[in-house]
């Protein structure tokens, strides 16, 4: 403990191994988990606002899987390994994948006009994307398989401070932008028609919501792979804690909760069966899926879904 402190706060380099572990492995990993966890939860909150449904989430609706598929395509055909692509490029590729899968889900969803059908479509899209990703991985070079497989299950283990800086560069502006739009978001929660009658430009606002969701979730996929259920579970937990829906409270709270949630999940993933590391999605699924089931059960009772 004392050693950690001295390395952390006094820049003690007497033990280079400890210094490296802390500054090059542990800290960037924690910082990245916090940042991406916050971003993922916030994107979940945004997509839930968009659909006015507490079960929507970037993973459930196939957004993460779409991003993952595109990234895998890029990795297999362009470079050979996911990690070696320039970060801006990976983010852009996964953003395209994320937006395309949102549009696909929306395009079909418009026709069915039914929330549970929309979720089923999202889950199907997610399965299709995952299957295609698996096929691609099958055909990738042997050397890349390990890293791709590892990444496609979600992990913070390869974090560097460069990743942290880059993702912060995208996530914080997105967070601030989201916060600036908390007022129309509050009106939108009471219905599109109502928001419109209050003078909200609903069409532009919906586009903004989708874009922000896409940006936030694709950054996560680019740096840590798809992480399941955080986007659904964390906004739900935040709502329970705050006992309000108001975006002006929910946006910062969801971000902080998500950061904490992912740091903890990553800690479990790393230490639970040490030295074997679990993938982050394994942990988030175990913790997050029951919350989704609970929400489904609640929704059924109230006939909302």
């Amino acid at each position, binding site marked *: 403990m004392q050693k950690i402190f001295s390395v952390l706060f006094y820049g003690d380099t007497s033990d280079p191994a400890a210094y490296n572990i802390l500054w090059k492995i542990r800290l960037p990993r924690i910082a990245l988990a916090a940042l991406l966890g916050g971003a993922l939860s916030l994107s979940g909150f945004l997509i839930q606002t968009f659909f006015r449904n507490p079960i929507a989430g970037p993973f459930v609706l196939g957004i993460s899987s779409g991003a993952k598929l595109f990234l895998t395509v890029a990795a297999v055909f362009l470079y050979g390994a996911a990690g070696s692509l320039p970060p801006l490029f990976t983010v852009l590729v996964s953003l395209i994948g994320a937006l395309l899968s949102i549009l696909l889900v929306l395009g079909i969803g418009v026709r069915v006009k039914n929330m549970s059908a929309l979720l089923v479509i999202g889950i199907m899209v997610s399965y299709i994307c995952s299957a295609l990703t698996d096929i691609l991985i099958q055909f990738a070079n042997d050397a890349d398989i390990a890293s791709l497989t590892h990444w496609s299950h979600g992990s913070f283990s390869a974090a560097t401070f460069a990743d942290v800086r880059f993702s912060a560069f995208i996530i914080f502006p997105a967070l601030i932008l989201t916060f600036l739009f908390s007022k129309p978001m509050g009106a939108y929660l*009471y219905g599109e028609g109502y928001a419109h*009658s209050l*003078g909200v430009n609903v069409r532009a606002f919906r586009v903004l919501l989708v874009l922000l969701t896409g940006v936030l979730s694709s950054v996560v996929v680019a740096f840590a792979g798809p992480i399941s259920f955080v986007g659904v579970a964390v906004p739900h937990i935040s709502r329970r804690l705050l006992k309000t*829906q108001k975006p002006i409270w929910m946006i910062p709270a969801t971000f902080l909760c998500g950061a904490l949630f992912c740091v903890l999940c990553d800690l479990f993933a790393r230490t639970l069966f040490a030295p074997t590391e679990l993938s982050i999605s394994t942990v988030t699924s175990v913790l997050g899926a029951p919350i989704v089931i609970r929400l489904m059960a609640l929704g059924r009772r109230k006939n909302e879904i």
Partner: protein
Amino acid sequence: MKFDAQDTRLALDALTVGYGGVPLISDIALSLRAGEIVTLIGPNGAGKSTILKSITRHLAALAGTVYLDGEDMRLLGGREIAQKMAAVFTDSIRPEMTTCFEFVAAGRYPYTGSFGALTPEDKKIVGAALDKVRASELAAREISSISDGQRQRILLARALCQTPRVIVLDEPTSFLDVRHKIELLEILSDMAKKDGIAVLMSLHEIDLAARISDRIVCVRGGEITAVGSPDQIFTDEMIRDLYGIERGSFGALLGNIELPAPCGAPRCFVVGGGGYGIPFYRALQKRGVPFAAGILLWGDVDLVVAKPLSQEVVCTPPFQAARAQDTAKAKALIDAASLVLNCGAPVGEYNRCNAELLQYAAGAGKTVVTDLDGLDAAIAREGTV
């Protein structure tokens, strides 16, 4: 609050509305003054909601202009419009973890700053709006936990928070029980009279529309068929035409709905009057027995039900002895019938004729019954009725 009743709050000029570029109703002209309540009536799918949604800009108007407080709405920004016009469209959204107060406070949106924080003044207005719809005690309740009737009042309070000059409501009384319908309309009419808010709405219940509205607009099959005061609009024929009622009837005077009359030659003659006959007319209709009724004085409340349900009603001018030809006609009907129903209406100076008819029936050997049990027994006995 003072207002000038001559103020035009909302004016539609050659407005054409429709979906997807296809005109449904063209060239609508209508104007609402301060404090005026105007109601759209007409059958389902006639285009009432389309008109309302085009005014509130939920739908794009295909042509024409809407003037809000004298200004062309196309030149107003969303915020300016929201400060002058509030819309109440019933939707099923019930946000969780939101108190009624928070929900109603959303109506302050066009006035609050960029983060939507409420000033003490805003909170006062929210409180006053809740007061006005008599829902102050609901303020701290969850919006998802209140009843439909309460919810409708909360929606109205939210609209009031916009301190609008015009309120547009789409079927605000649907799904409410009678008590809540009356309450809601009373609040609306209060609002219009005291605060001078112009109210434009659609209603399904034409009887209620007649009571609350200053003016009625009839919408049918893609056109506005009539505009006028409730007295001008609510005649039996007008309603029959508007809704295309072919079987059964709607009595415009009292708003009573009657099912179609049983067909065939009258087999029963009902001696009623003064409201005594009404339950019997309806009982005969339910049993499918065609009947005639008489002798009723003009203006007798019995007529409101007897007219639409019977094959024939014998009427005579009121407050005098029945005319001889009417008595003769009634006797002829008794001759043709096998059954006479005495409803027990009091007989006095003006309707001695009815005592005479009952005597005549007994003398002619007709079965005379005085209650529903007797009626059922007689029907069973005859078997043929």
